[in-house]
């Protein structure tokens, strides 16, 4: 009898554990138009931001085998390997985003064939074309396609994404819609989504809960950009993460050209226009690509990769201790919270890989794109 109760209890626990992912998920093939942004939650659910479709998809890839791997992962010719799968040459393979499943340590890349058209330093891969392939790389380096056919998934539409017909003001041939979703960050059961909307102040930050409900709050953002010497509302957040500063949840958000801003999470309510506090200017001629939080010797640090600047490392405690605000034009493009530039030119995507390593993609001097592991022991100011 006791054994039966135990089995019943375990069965119920298993059911609860599975359904906790999202009881609203259904099996099928999600109608994803563009795999623009990737992010995992702690349960190994992959969130796909679809800029063209104006939606977020939560996908259960049945990838939940726990890995305790502490080794690094390195593939010196990542694009060559993927090119072979896509039937093209390495110079035409373009990686749009990277995320690591925290349970299995499998690496996921959104990929397209279109890099040959990437000729402007200001364009992002999503400006060039839509990613349509999801690639999985195991911790041992095995590369395969992660099929999105016949998977468990749920989705939610983001309200009022920027219209598909609106052209970018200065990127020739680009449409703003490719920036409808620029980044996703997950904090517990909350999803924060940045991008562009149709509002007068286009820069938007949507908040949703997971499991999804129809209730997605949209706030518009305004920041003072010290390098440009003006308040800006049209430029989207490029990379961000939620972080608690002085016991208050903030979004640490980086923009093109490269201001760092804190945004008070409590103000992100439906329809609210929120002014961020600009706490640093990291330099011009650049856009941030990725931001990752990690620990070194038990202390939090943030690493940021960039399109034109080297890796930037900063201490969130320095942000918490910074009580100023940049509200006037900055000469020389640098101001505010201090940061440490780290060697790492050409580093593009970043993701927390395992206890010891951060994973990155890096353009090497031979022109190849490498998947490399950055030791957290090495990454301190």
């Amino acid at each position, binding site marked *: 009898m006791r054994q039966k109760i135990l089995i019943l209890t375990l069965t119920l626990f298993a059911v609860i554990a599975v359904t906790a992912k999202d009881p609203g998920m259904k099996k099928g093939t999600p109608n994803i138009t563009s795999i623009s942004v990737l992010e995992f939650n702690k349960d190994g659910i992959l969130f796909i931001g679809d800029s063209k479709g104006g939606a977020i998809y939560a996908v259960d890839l049945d990838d939940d085998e726990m890995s305790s791997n502490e080794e690094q992962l390195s593939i010196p010719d990542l694009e060559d390997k993927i*090119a072979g799968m*896509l*039937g093209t040459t390495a110079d035409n393979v373009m990686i749009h985003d990277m995320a690591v499943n925290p349970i299995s340590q499998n690496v996921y890349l959104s990929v397209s064939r279109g890099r040959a058209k990437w000729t402007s330093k200001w364009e992002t891969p999503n400006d060039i074309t839509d990613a349509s392939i999801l690639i999985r790389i195991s911790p041992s380096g095995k590369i395969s396609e992660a099929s999105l056919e016949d998977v468990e998934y749920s989705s939610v539409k983001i309200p009022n994404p920027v219209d598909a017909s609106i052209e970018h003001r200065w990127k020739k041939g680009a449409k703003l819609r490719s920036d409808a979703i620029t980044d996703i960050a997950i904090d517990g059961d909350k999803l924060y989504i940045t991008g562009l909307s149709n509002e007068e102040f286009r820069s938007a930050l949507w908040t949703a809960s997971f499991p999804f409900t129809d209730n997605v709050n949209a706030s518009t953002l305004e920041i003072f950009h010290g390098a440009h010497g003006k308040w800006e509302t049209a430029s989207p957040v490029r990379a961000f993460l939620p972080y608690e500063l002085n016991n208050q949840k903030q979004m640490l958000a980086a923009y093109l050209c490269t201001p760092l801003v804190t945004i008070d999470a409590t103000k992100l309510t439906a329809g609210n226009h929120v002014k961020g506090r600009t706490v640093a200017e990291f330099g011009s001629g650049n856009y941030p690509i990725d931001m990752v939080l990690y620990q070194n010797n038990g202390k939090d640090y943030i690493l940021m990769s960039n399109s034109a600047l080297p890796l930037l490392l900063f201490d969130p405690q320095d942000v918490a201790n910074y009580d100023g605000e940049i509200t006037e034009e900055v000469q020389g493009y640098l101001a505010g919270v201090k940061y440490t530039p780290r060697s790492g030119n050409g580093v593009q995507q970043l993701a927390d890989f395992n206890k010891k390593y951060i994973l990155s993609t890096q353009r090497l001097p031979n022109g190849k794109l490498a998947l490399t592991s950055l030791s957290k022991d090495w990454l301190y100011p």
Partner: protein
Amino acid sequence: MIHIKTNIKKGGLWSLLCFLLAVSTVNGQSFFTAKTLPQSDRYGTITTRLVPEDIVRLIEERNLNFDEWSSFFYVQTSPSGPAVLGAYGIETNHLSFTPKFLPDPNIKYLVTFSYPKLAELLSGQIEETSIYSDVASFEPPEATQPEVISFIPKLHDVPANLLRFYVYFSAPMSLQNPYDFITIEDKNGKALVDPFVIVPEGLWNIDHTRLTLLLHPGRVKQGVGPNMTLGDVLLAGNSYTLKIDPAWKGSSGEPLKEAFTQTINATNPLRGAMNINNWALKAKVNNGIGILTVVTDHPLDQPLAQRMLFLRNMEGQILPVQINFENPEQLQILWRHQGSQELELLIDPRLEDVCGNTPHYAFDLEGTERTPSQEELKIKFKIE
């Protein structure tokens, strides 16, 4: 259309072990056939020769996934490369592979079919031990010579302060400097000096099939530096010939099919803002299709007009439309009509005529309004 051919390359660079064991032909014919399917989105497949029926049945019963298929029927683009993504299938005792993406013509597909690997997968139920390998390549479409298919504005008489030409090509053009191949000559055959704004590699659309030639605005605009020193580009009352040299190459490397010439007569400059109150609109419905004919007060910049004119119904919805120009001053807007008999033509205030004048300001006159009004530009009309 993509043409596919198979080339027999016995023992090529293909994975060494496979090639040592493999053969590529059966009775002198390739084991693989590559064929196009032009009427299908499956543009091509690589198919094996007949596979014994009992083996096909075993494969069918197993409902194999991609990794299992590619363990014995392997397609790759380099000897050490991964399996090319695609779909495997069975077509009446032939096994087939369709690449997931349109093949790159520069890529060769190395194909192997291994009965021993298949036997391994099917737990040894096969006695056949042959391994076949071959190279399949997808030939690019035959290179065609590009040609000029359209030229805008479609006018022989143009205002002397014209701002832009658009040249449309039948195929993408190369990145050669366009200004090395394009000249404007006066009636004596003398080339004009610096008529265009030089934009490195030219102002192209994404496909590299439309070139925008911007006549030097500093020379078009009266009283500014370049105009004072170099003078107007075009002078009213004179005729000119725009010539495109046939040596200019398309992206395929083929030169233009023939030279292109366009004669234009410069008429009096058009200096003044457009006035949409002077536009004449007439709308009707024919077989469910709404047809709005618009006669404008200025010849419009047609590519801009394609992006900057909209129709809105009384419910506030922007309707999908098709815009056809009879000439730069007369166009038709077509839409699938239903509902209200009253609609609005919306005009983006950035719309320009061929001389850069907008509804709010004249390109070439001082003192006119420069800041676009926030007021929406619209003309209401009723269907007759």
